[in-house]
């Protein structure tokens, strides 16, 4: 029986009772409990089911390494699967459910897998479910997938009720881990004056030390911790954060801290998690060590736990998981658990010590009346949902001659492994420590920082030492070394002197008993969550999956949610043994961030909902929004696709806008078009390189349409360029092209032609720009009054500065629609007022705003190309019949050389033409034209494709543009476009100018 003692429990406050539920049952705990300690206090030994065999699982550890006690926590929009009970602080109203079973935890259909375990060894699925083939899709795989997963998925429509944020922090020294080593390292570093940040994953400082005991400078270690924390709190150069886990270490001194702000009290205001993005000159990993399980048959039965965990539950929370306990060990540390349990009144039946001789702690245990059996082992633990009895045998043997002892809990200790994860994340290497039988950081091969020097130092038991005195000395040295490496001068203060009982050496024990037979090996668990046993690793080795990565992947060892914190070293040792190799030869798998799982919410940070991504808005954005704008994202901009009136479809709206603009007057918010000022004595020469056309010869006051190609020859942008004065040009770019084109210009100016005297400035957002389009365009401007916008005063492709109404403006007489058209730029702060003025003055002329789709149709009616429609990154100006825009006079411009390559001059390139369906219908977007036959790969031969296709309300029929092989030479021919609707669309090749071929409308 697992129970709460009436005394003890240094972390709980017995005056504060807390009520919570587990699988619907209400239980009681105390403030300071973890969910795991509270469940144990309520005799809830079984907390879940394993992944593969659905075996009963109880808590095995007391901290972040826990593989078994995972629960679904919370409800609805706060439900979270796979939460470790051992690191979940208890709060009032906590609801938890166990995982991976049906219909319930006690009775689980899936547990039939346990009975079949023998038929489901490692990798069995690679060998089975192969025949008959259709069974895989319809029976086998659905079955495998249904049994997959641990925790329940959150509801499909759930929306996380919490918020998250990031924070950037900069420090000289980051110390990860707030145990005695981390605290001392922080102090040693801080005393140098260095800026120090110390983060600790739990809510408590001091780590294991207060449980393990010992003295520091003559006083009990818990007092030492208390004083040290107070001292650090007063130091101005020290930042302390608990509930903040060091999640990962990355290049150039970058580390992630995962701070859980409200998990222990979900009602609190503020974000739930904060992800710290820390830049440290030096990082000290004082991450402690993790006890290893022992591999014996039945080591997975609920009630079998790590000896240190049992000690933690007793000392920290006043909980003992059993009344009759057997302890198995290969080292002295487990005796501390034996002694404390005995002192707490637990019947410690036996310590089976695989070693022939034990140290002074064993003697202390014996004196308390505990029976110590050297050279002994656990052959097998019996029991289903909790420990019933334990069979003991000699360690040196195959597990015969067993003695059976009734017991209800087993503590095991296979020695300790430093937590090397954070050391390893960024390339720190490990060495094998023969004496402690563990991997520890190799100080000669640390992770390298930006300067090529090591930037991580391991401290305390994370670095190998396990005795309190050694830990403190190591941590002190690490703190000083980190401060020094960060450019500070450490103080010569003496390290505190820690003392604890001396210990005899441990002896590696990878299997219990040493030569356990196959039946026992098949029940000796390595990975408790994924159900990987000793026999599985041996099978992998036998079948040739010899690399440690092969074994891991073949057996799934260490791939569970604990990422092998308990299983890795034990599994490696078994593999090494099976291969007859040394452990360091076999090596480890790669440690990858995060140390323990971190929430997706925290990773995303504040970027959710309305600040998920910026939405760029023009000065008239709100007006559009209020007037039926159907929005279209264009880059980060929002543009109006069409202004939909009540009762209209989007399609109706587009047709209305198209007709009205041709017949009366349309207004387009063109503010998103990029505007770049290019100025300087070399500006003309520079623009001649940027554009395929000649820009240096453009006269002041005039405009010219320009094309830009990449150096690789492909069209990248286009727009109208205006010459402002002798050495100043204004270049329009496409929407969303301003930043890219500005960057493109700066790149060439800064990295190739840096001696050219040219300055570029991006003034896109300085202006609200409105296209005033249609037969009544001039009338509305004249009504507003101001500058002369007559044909004579402002001819086509010219610009003037002046006033329209009250507004200072620059008016460009340019047209992307073929209509009489002005683009008027006013200061952005007056954009809305100008828009309002145009609408008001335009009433009598039939004014309507129009959106991007109307813009597209108007330009297509005129055969104007659109970057992104006619071009897709593979199209060159020659394909589009834009030879006239490729200056023959210039020796050089970006893209010119590229156009000379054989594929670019190939006469078979597809060329731009107009397309008219035979029946007037609209060609499907993206359709391909087919030729005869198939190619060598059996694909239909294609001879072209549709690049733009619309219904033209003005022409009352479908119009399209496309690229067709030899297209311009095939005018009048009919080509076929198979649709995805099984129809064949027939279209005639025509001139791409469908409307007002002579351009009479724009030239008025």
């Amino acid at each position, binding site marked *: 029986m697992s129970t709460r003692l009436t005394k003890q429990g240094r972390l709980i406050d017995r005056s504060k009772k807390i009520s919570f539920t587990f699988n619907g049952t209400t239980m009681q705990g105390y403030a300071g409990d973890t969910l795991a300690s509270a469940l144990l206090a309520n005799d809830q030994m079984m907390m879940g089911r394993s992944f593969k065999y659905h075996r009963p699982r109880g808590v095995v550890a007391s901290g972040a390494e826990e593989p078994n006690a995972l629960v679904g926590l919370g409800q609805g929009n*706060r439900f*979270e*699967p796979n939460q470790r009970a051992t690191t979940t602080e208890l709060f009032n109203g906590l609801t938890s459910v166990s995982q991976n079973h049906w219909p319930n935890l006690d009775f689980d259909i899936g547990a039939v897998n346990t009975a079949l375990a*023998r038929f489901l*060894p490692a990798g069995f*699925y*690679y*060998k*089975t479910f*192969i*025949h008959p083939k259709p069974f*895989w*899709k319809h029976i086998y*795989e659905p079955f495998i*997938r249904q049994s*997959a*997963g*641990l925790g*329940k998925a959150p509801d*499909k429509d759930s*929306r996380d009720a919490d918020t998250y944020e990031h924070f950037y922090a900069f420090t000289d020294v980051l110390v990860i881990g707030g145990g005695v080593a981390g605290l001392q390292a922080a102090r040693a570093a801080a005393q140098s004056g260095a800026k120090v940040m110390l983060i600790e994953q739990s809510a408590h400082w001091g780590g294991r030390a207060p449980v393990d005991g010992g003295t520091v400078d003559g006083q009990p270690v818990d007092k030492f911790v208390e004083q040290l924390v107070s001292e650090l709190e007063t130091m101005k150069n020290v930042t302390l954060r608990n509930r903040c886990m060091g999640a990962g270490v*990355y*290049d150039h001194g*970058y580390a992630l801290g995962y701070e859980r702000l409200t998990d222990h009290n979900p009602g609190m205001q503020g974000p739930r998690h904060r992800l710290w993005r820390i830049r440290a000159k030096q990082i000290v990993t004082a991450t402690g060590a993790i006890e290893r399980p022992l591999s014996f048959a039945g080591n997975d039965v609920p009630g079998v736990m790590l000896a240190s965990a049992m000690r933690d539950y007793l000392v920290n929370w006043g909980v003992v998981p059993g009344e009759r306990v057997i302890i198995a060990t290969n080292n002295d540390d487990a005796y501390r658990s034996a002694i404390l349990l005995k002192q707490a009144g637990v019947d410690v039946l036996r310590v089976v010590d695989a070693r022939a001789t034990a140290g002074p702690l064993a003697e202390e245990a014996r004196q308390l009346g505990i029976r110590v059996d050297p050279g002994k082992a656990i052959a097998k633990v019996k029991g289903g949902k909790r420990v019933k009895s334990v069979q003991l045998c000699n360690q040196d043997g195959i597990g015969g001659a067993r003695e059976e002892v009734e017991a209800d809990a087993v503590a095991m200790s296979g020695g300790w492994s430093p937590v090397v994860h954070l050391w390893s994340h960024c390339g720190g290497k490990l060495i094998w420590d023969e004496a402690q039988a563990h991997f520890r950081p190799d100080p000669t091969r640390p992770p390298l920082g930006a300067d090529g020097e090591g930037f991580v130092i391991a401290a305390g038991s994370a670095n190998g030492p396990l005795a309190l005195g050694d830990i403190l000395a190591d941590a002190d040295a690490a703190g000083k070394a980190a401060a020094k490496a960060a450019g500070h001068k450490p103080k010569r203060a003496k390290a505190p002197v820690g003392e604890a009982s001396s210990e005899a050496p441990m002896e590696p024990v990878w299997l219990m008993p040493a030569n356990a037979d*196959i039946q026992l090996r098949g029940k000796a668990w390595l990975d408790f969550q994924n159900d990987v046993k000793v*026999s599985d690793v041996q*099978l992998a080795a*036998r079948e*040739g*999956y010899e*690399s440690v*990565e092969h074994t891991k*992947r*073949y057996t799934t060892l260490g791939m569970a*949610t604990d*990422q092998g914190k308990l299983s890795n070293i034990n599994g490696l040792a078994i593999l090494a043994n099976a291969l007859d190799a040394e452990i360091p030869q076999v090596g480890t798998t790669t440690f990858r961030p*995060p140390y323990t799982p971190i*929430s*997706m919410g925290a990773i*995303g940070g504040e970027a*959710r909902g309305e600040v*998920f991504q910026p*939405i760029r808005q023009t000065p008239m954005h709100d007006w559009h929004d209020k007037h039926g704008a159907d929005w279209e*994202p264009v880059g980060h901009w929002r543009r109006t696709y069409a202004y939909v009136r009540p009762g209209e479809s989007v399609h109706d709206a587009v047709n209305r806008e198209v007709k009205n603009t041709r017949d009366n007057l349309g207004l387009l918010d063109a503010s998103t078009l990029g505007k770049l000022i290019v100025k300087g004595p070399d500006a003309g020469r520079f623009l001649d390189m940027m554009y395929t056309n000649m820009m240096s010869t453009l006269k002041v006051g005039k405009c010219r349409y320009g094309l830009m190609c990449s150096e*690789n020859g492909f069209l990248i942008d286009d727009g109208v360029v205006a010459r402002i004065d002798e050495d100043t040009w204004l270049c329009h770019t496409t929407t969303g092209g301003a930043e890219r084109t500005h960057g493109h210009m700066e790149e060439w100016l800064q990295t190739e032609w840096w001696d050219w005297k040219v300055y570029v400035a991006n003034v896109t957002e300085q202006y609200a720009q409105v296209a005033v389009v249609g037969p009544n365009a001039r009338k509305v401007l004249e009504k507003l009054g101001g500058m002369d916008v007559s044909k004579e005063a402002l001819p086509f492709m010219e610009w003037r500065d002046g006033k329209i109404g009250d507004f200072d403006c620059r008016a460009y007489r340019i047209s992307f629609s073929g209509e009489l058209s002005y683009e008027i730029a006013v200061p952005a702060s007056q954009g809305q007022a100008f828009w309002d003025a145009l609408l008001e003055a335009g009433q009598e002329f039939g004014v309507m705003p129009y959106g991007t789709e109307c813009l597209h149709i108007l330009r297509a009616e005129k055969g104007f190309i659109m970057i*992104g*429609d006619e071009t*897709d*990154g593979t199209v060159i100006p020659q394909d589009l019949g834009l030879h006239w825009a490729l200056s023959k006079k210039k020796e050089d411009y970006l893209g010119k050389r590229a156009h000379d*390559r*054989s*594929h670019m001059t190939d006469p078979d390139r597809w060329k731009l033409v107009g397309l008219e369906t035979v029946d007037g219908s609209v060609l499907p*977007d*993206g359709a*391909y034209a087919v030729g005869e036959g198939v190619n060598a*790969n059996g*694909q239909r031969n*294609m001879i072209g*494709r549709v690049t733009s296709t619309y219904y033209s309300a003005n022409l009352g029929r479908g119009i399209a543009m496309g690229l067709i092989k030899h297209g311009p030479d095939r005018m009048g021919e009919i080509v076929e476009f198979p649709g*995805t609707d099984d129809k064949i669309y027939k279209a005639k090749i025509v001139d791409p100018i469908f409307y007002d071929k002579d351009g009479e409308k724009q030239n008025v």
Partner: protein
Amino acid sequence: MKHYSAFAVAREALRYHTGWERAWRSPQPKKRYDAIIVGAGGHGLATAYYLGRNYGIQNVAVIEKGWLGGGNTGRNTTIIRSNYLQDPSAALYERARSLYEDLSQELNYNIMFSPRGVIMLAQTQHEIRGYQRTAHANALQGVKTEWIGPQRVKELVPIINLDGPRYPVLGGLWQERGGTARHDAVAWGYARACSAMGMDIIQQCEVTGVRSDNGRVVGIDTTKGAIDCDKLGIVVAGHSGQLAEMAGFRLPLEAVALQALVSEPIKPCMDVVVMANTVHGYMSQSDKGEMVIGGGTDGFNNYTQRGSFHHIEETVRALVETFPMISRLKMLRQWGGIVDMTGDRSPILSKTPLGNCFINCGWGTGGFKAIPGSGWGMAQLMATGHSPLTEAFTLDRFKEGRFIDESVAAGVAH
């Protein structure tokens, strides 16, 4: 080779699985092979396999510096699809996809090909047009895809948020027979089949030189000695440049880090693969229950197999927006691989300036899905000197300006 089946597993269970033999032999290299493939990843092993299967060339060695399947084969997000736009890509990836359909049976090794379907979301007008174009091309290329509307997307992916404030889901390109496979198993299955044909897979053996005579390859030097060969295939992903240098030519490649991550395993909640290119993220759920997530690449040369964390952030926030329920799931593990990028982001499968030496590289972010097709085409190229599957993917296309650009229809290609 011992046949794998449920009966065999049951039979072996009676003797506690002590009777299983090695999946592949671990031989010492011979003096000479008809063909040597450098690189025992999926592409290299598949090339060897089809050399034997299709052309009877079985005196083949596959040389591997580390452990087989340990490069990008074992660190990708396992997506299989063939809904590419350009003819040569569609041909290659569709051949691969169709070979994947029967691969478990062919190799007698369950590679767990799961044709659960792949959706590429359209979240802008531009993407709608791009995917409709792809659907039209695919129909003519013999690739079965269809354009589907938002409601059908929601039926297929109940956890999706159609009305994201930034990018609403406007529809998608759906390939019903796309899906995923167990990546390690693909390498292991090919390795076992190669070994069974008598081919030698030599792991822990690094190539130190390429020997040639009169402009033709004659052998390689390795850490296990010199080995002669008639033909040499270099299929080593992130190390292509180094091998090419040994063979005396250069490659237009750059190595960058690509990252991926998985969540903790949860019960099944998403039955298809979803790719959201506008926001640079894609996600599927593995047979184990983990949400497998991939994103974009770093922009700089990097051989560390560690990427920059901000890419993980960008991908995750995009996916949280697209699938809000994952917000409270947790990232279990992130990792990186080194991928070779070419000038047009399409691979190179080609003869080289060195006679009888062939190169297969430059898969960028999308190599896994191509493995069987790539192996098939490379084997044909190596055995016969020509393959329609590979003929567009030559080294000299960059000089001619003849690119195979898939970014036309989609922002990223994985």
